[in-house]
């Protein structure tokens, strides 16, 4: 089983999703993985760039792939948007229009096609990896009923990103089960959270967010796990507006799945990361972990 990877943190894992980056790095280290940060990485192209100048977005992504090719390691990309963009660029290199690619970034394409872009969920959900994930558990998270939320960027379009079932992915659910929490099957795991519309068309996003939060609660979850900084931001920070929309109070903590793993492994800084959340997870975490 491969344990050394190149690593693309992207802007969010150093900024708004810093707790995702920190918890991910800690958990991977704890499981014996090495993550080598991609030298001189740049924006993945997921900012407004991909809507305004798709070619620039593609060029940005391809440059990252070229950097990764030099490491001769698979590239772990945790942010769903980065992952999505790099995979899409990868597909463009492999099966797309070579002229378009050449035009996007005139660098030697050699090696780029061989770069494998993987998501941490993909790395940790293999049968062998799961056995290790399970073996290291110190605090079983029994009592956590977790709705795993994958959003849209990790699941579609299937041609570019497929590593799990498009409509019913289970990689995160399997990890959640391996750390002793109870995965909750629910219907909204690949629905859109509103993404960037959260700022530009808040009403639309809140509508979507409310449906997802209500769906998780209805399915009996007391926590949501995510693997994308944007999903986290939307689900975590909009619960007040969502409650207003639903005309009832919704309060359900939203964790990065790596934070839950850190809790299960009793990693020292886990609590610090959780303090960054807007919807406080502490009543739940304290109630369950202290019971033991």
């Amino acid at each position, binding site marked *: 089983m491969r344990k050394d990877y190149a690593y693309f943190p992207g802007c969010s894992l150093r900024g708004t999703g810093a707790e995702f980056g920190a918890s991910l790095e800690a958990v991977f280290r704890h499981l014996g993985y090495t993550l080598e940060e991609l030298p001189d990485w740049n924006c993945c192209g997921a900012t407004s760039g991909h809507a305004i100048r798709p070619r620039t977005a593609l060029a940005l992504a391809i440059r990252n792939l070229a950097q990764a090719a030099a490491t001769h390691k698979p590239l772990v990309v945790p942010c769903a948007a980065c992952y999505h963009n790099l995979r899409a660029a990868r597909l463009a290199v492999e099966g797309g229009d070579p002229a378009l690619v050449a035009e996007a970034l005139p660098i030697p394409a050699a090696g780029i096609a061989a770069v494998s872009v993987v998501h941490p969920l993909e790395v940790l959900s293999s049968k062998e990896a799961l056995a290790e994930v399970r073996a290291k558990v110190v605090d079983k998270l029994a009592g956590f009923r977790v709705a795993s939320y994958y959003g849209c960027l990790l699941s579609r379009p299937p041609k570019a990103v497929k590593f799990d079932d498009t*409509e019913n992915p289970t990689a995160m659910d399997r990890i959640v089960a391996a750390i002793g929490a109870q995965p909750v*099957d629910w*219907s*909204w795991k690949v629905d859109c959270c509103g993404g960037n519309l959260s700022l530009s068309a808040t009403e639309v996003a809140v509508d979507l967010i409310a449906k997802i939060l209500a769906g998780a609660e*209805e*399915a*009996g979850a007391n926590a949501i796990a995510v693997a994308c900084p944007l999903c986290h931001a939307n689900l975590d920070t909009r619960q007040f507006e969502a409650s207003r929309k639903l005309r009832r109070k919704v309060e359900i903590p939203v964790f990065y799945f790596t934070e839950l793993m850190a809790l299960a492994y009793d990693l020292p800084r886990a609590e610090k990361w959780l303090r960054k959340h807007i919807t406080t997870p502490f009543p739940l975490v304290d109630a369950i972990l202290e019971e033991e």
Partner: protein
Amino acid sequence: MIKAKVERGSVLVVGGGVAGMQAALDAAAMGFKVHLAEAKSALGGQMSALDKTFPTNDCAMCMLSPRLVEIGNNPNIEILPLAEVKAVEGEAGDFHVTLRRRPRFVDVKKCTACGDCLDVCPVEIPDAFNRDLSSRKAIGRLYPQAVPSAFAIERLGPARCRLACPAGTNAQGYVALAGKGKFLEAYNLVRETNPFVSVCGRVCYHPCEKECTRGLIDEPVAVMALKRYVADKVRAGKLLDGEPLPERDPAKARRRVAVVGAGPAGLAAAYRLAKAGYSVTVFEEREKPGGMMRYGIPAYRLPKDELDFEIGNILKLGVELRSGWKLGRAGSVDSLLGQGCEAVFVAIGAWKGLKLGVPGEDAGGVLDAVTFLEAANSGRDVTVGKRVVVIGGGDAAMDAARTALRLGAEKVTVLYRRSREEMPASIAEQNEALEEGVSFQFLAAPTGFVVKDGAVEALSAVRMKLGEPDGSGRRRPMPIAGSDFTVPADTVLVAISQAVDADGAAQSALGMTDWKTVRVDPLTLRTSRERVFAGGDAVTGPATVIEAVAAGNRAARSIENLLEGRPLVEGQNPAEAEALPSVSDETLEEARARMRSKACRQAMPEAPARERAADFREVALGFDDAAALAEAERCLACGICSDCGQCAAACEAGAVNYDDAEREETIDVGAIILATGFEPYDATRAGEYGYGRYANVVTSLEFERILSASGPTFGHVERPSDGKAPRRIAFIQCVGSRSVTDAANPWCSGVCCMYSTKEAIIAKEHAPDTEVTVFFIDIRAHGKGYERYRDSAEKVHGVRYVRSMPSTVKEIKRTGNLALRYAGDDGKLVDAEFDLVVLAVGLEPARDAKAAAEALGIALDPHGFPETKESSPADTSREGVFAAGTAAEPKDIPESVITASAAAARAGELLAGARGSEIRPEVFPREREVASDQERIGVFVCHCGSNIAGVVDVDGLAKYAATLPGVAAAEDLMYACSPDGLERIRKAIRELGLNRVVVSSCSPRTHEPIFRRALREEGLNPYLFELANIRDQCAWVHRSDAAAATSKARDLLRASVARARFLEPLHDTEVEVTAHALVVGGGAAGMTAALSLAGQRFGVTLVEKEKALGGNLRDLRQSVGGLDFERYLAALTKAVTSNPKIQVLAESRLIEQSGYVGNFESVISTPAGEVAVRHGVTIIATGAEEYAPTEYLFGKDARVVTQRQFEQGLAEGRAAGGAVAMIQCVGSRDDSRPYCSRVCCSEAVKNALESKRRSPETPVYILYRDVRTYGFKEELYRKAREAGVLFIRYTPERKPEVTAAGDGLMIRVFDHDLGEEVEFAVGTLVLSAGIVPRPDAGEVARLMKLPLTQDGFFLEAHMKLRPVDFATEGVYLAGLAHGPKLFDESAAQALAAAGRAATVLSKKTVSVGGSVAVVDEDLCAACLTCVRLCPYEVPVIKDGAAKIEPAKCQGCGVCAGACPAKAIQLLHFKDAQVVAAARALVAGGD
């Protein structure tokens, strides 16, 4: 026309669904021998699982079942179940076919379908017939009416658990039996390979669990714990105590075998040999038998009484035990052989504990674990110190440590040189030891002992680290320099390994390996000595009980072989030869889906650690009933049949045959008809709808079963999650169809709109307040009568149709309800909740279609269906191989039946010269004259296994029958229908001179033909038979009241006997057939039919009213498939007019027809005067015509044309002149013509595409209501959209408005997508005018007394299964006269009509008479009652009285019942016969 060099008179039909059955029946009736190969164990195909059928709501099974019986009884159809085509060699007319026949494991000839096996089979599997919504047994049949009715066993092979067991113990089998509470059966099943059930239920290392398939999904089944549960139940219930011992053959009993060593290997061999009948003596060194089981394993793991019980059972078989006998000391192998033993099995174990080889090992307090355990387990007084150290990491080390604890040690430490991960002791034992307080020191090895006063004081040791892997694959421990330490100890137990304990002489007598174990041949276990065998630990070194047992079995088999003079290896599989079957992902997926319980593995309850460590009570407490049942249910039954043998034991007919195996068969045939059907689309691929994930999302086929009275819920509509009646049901159409994604198919499946409509109606009929919503894209009700049917669903039944596709289904967890979101009529999103969602899944090529195509050597189209020709839709790319039904393209049942008859016709053309050459006419003895005889009735009462005899007192009934008037003989039979039962009946007829026979058994529906046949074989008229149904109508329905059932059986039998006294022989008259056909109508259908008939070597008269042949084809230019009609018509006309067998009468009309099937006489008016034609059959192919529009300025403005005119213009290269608009449904689907003309959408799309091809820039608009491009024509629709054709939907409420302007035609139409009215100008307006009947259709109908539909098309005999027949025998229907259809469909129907006609023309004679109505002319008042009531329009009034032509009469009896003057009698059901039965029935007989 096709011709073959060699012609064989036989046809192979591949596939036994509705199409295959039709093709087989037709081909057989044409005079060909038919081999009907079906992949499943019975015929019936997909139709057998349908509830009702559209548009008549007839029950599917009620229609199918008589056909099944007809095929089953047809002497010229050989059914080949479980058969697939492997290869086809040769050429058209002379094929050499290799078939793969899968094993049935039940002898079809012996099985009587009594069902006794069903009660005993312990394996329940999901019932595929019920779409896994209920369960069935591993043995059984697909459905009750299945033909062949014989059962079959679903058996994949040994399960992985069984293969993983060294002794091959049938774990799946005993787990299944345990789950059914069959403890003794389970126990005995284990004992077939292992006499130590209880022992291995407690101490086995259970490799079975490691390989358990369930373990690949979650956790393995607790196989060992279930074995113990079985053993405990057997002991506690004293189930074994009354068991009789097997009888011994004295000759065998004189032969003696010696076994040395009473451990598991020796005793297993002794058990097996004793059971085989030999005399066995076991020589044992120790006081008691059991070996390591007794002296090695402590009682807290294996209580001694359990061991005593099982050894006692071995000794009970007559095995003699001599204890205190040690090899070498008491005697040698040679001395045993010298004392008359013919063979010796040496199983002396490995009892010598190995030494560490470090200084101080001889000190007091240091001893080896074997010696220690032996002493402790013998009950001898053993003392241990306070601080005990155990060296080693195996099971023996755990046993020693835990025993020491129980003997009072205060601190027990286990020292092991590797880490815990490498430790060989079982995890469970490690954990138990830890719980009890044993501590472990890993990575530590002893270096010596600190000895004081000759006694050990402490142990010196060194820390280890793990280096590179060694030969065993484990990492080699290496000492860490300078890490020495000491552990204080006053007892040290060394448990590192064991060796064989035998003196030098004994060793050299046997021959040893370098490892100091006995050297043997691994396959036979023979030593270097001829008659001496060895096994167990003595050969392998210390191992496990089950491995020793396996060795004992192997040695016993060798010894048996030796004694019986067979080669030693016979029946011996190499130990490790059978590799475990790998489990594919698909299998696992299926297993996952099949998982009935998601329950986790049950935990074994244990005595509390603190309490149990104080004494030797048993630690593991065993499962209670609930835990055992739950655990047994976790078994996936991955071999399906578990080979438990219960059915074979229960089958009194001896029909079960486990040795059945796959085989190849070859047959020679002249033609092959492929009718392998379709596969429903796998809805899990449409993940967005959550099928397989949400309980209440079902497929349409599942819903079909849920609706069905024979389904999993017996016709109560219940949803799967909670069994509640769904109040709101949603249908989602086009699941898997009409899609361009990889997960679905591009074509339209053609039937889903209608079956959903049917299911919606039936659901409403079940519960009228159910709200049913159908979500659809286009409703495709393009078949005959379908539009009306759909309209009635909406208007009469209240089904709601919503033109919108929900993109996803969400489950509301709390209620199990489903949330759908869709765009409403106004384009706004609507959220709706439903209790049940039905996915209308499409049709795909059969799963093995590709393999079948390869075997048959035919080409497939890109969709995976066989390529066929438009003008001859039954022909595939290989001559002589034809395709029928959905194997060729998705289609509904009538079209499947049509293509089947068409395929039979094509085969008939190919093989016309060999017709009749391979069928054998049946010859029966001359009939005995009986009418004047005194009646001598024979009564036979059938037990039907226990089906009847289990409820009704059969013996008593037979005795009672003997007392009834007229009865000459009465007896009871186990199975009257079995070959020996039938022989008894025949013998009685022969020897006792019986002249009437009554069988009191099951249903005449299935069995009457069999018994009638037996009568004919003995020269009795078949009508002298009577059947009393005391099974279906008595025993089965009155199971709970045996006395009343017996009384009713008497009544029924008495009635039958009374009726039998009045039975009369009936004779059919044979009338010669005129082998000539009359075809009315010279269009495409008429000409195609005529050519096929001529090709089958029958004469044809083709009557055409016009001067030229061709009909509508003359006005058409191109088919939707691209065929050039002008060229095709020219060729077709030439073929017809130049064929010497075809007489064409142009400008002619049929003016008179009389006669009946086989012998019609017609008068044709021709330009040359009237012509009389004698013919055996008539085909009506009078066509239909294009509607002449009155709307949209047609006829008023030259720019408005019909679709047909537009096509002609395109063909002639006339420019359209500006934009083109087409309006669909002109003259169709309105109040005056409420039917769909079927062809217009495809024609419009085809012509639009052609217009785009010629002039891409010219805009084309198609104004439609539903786009009905069914089947593969959906591709044309997609291409049209891609080519830029604009589709605008309109509704009949807001029809488009057309106004003429100077420079164009203005079209105004409300666009539903935009939600507003649009207006645009076009240069040409094309009206898709519908198809209307010919104005003279009514005249033809009257002339020939044929019925018409409300719409004026001819009405066939049955819309589903007889689509080309009229109710009047010998008259057939083809082409547009039947209803609107495309060219290829007309061609298929024309061939089908020719095929059906050939079934009559092929016969030399037709039988007339039998059970038909006869008129007493003296009584007849000519009141016309019969004329009006007869559904077949047979009676006519002639010369003042009704005349009923026996050739036409169907024997339904309607006229006889209704005749006011009682002038009509139905033969075989004459008043005297019926009244006698009724009187006897109510008379009471006791």
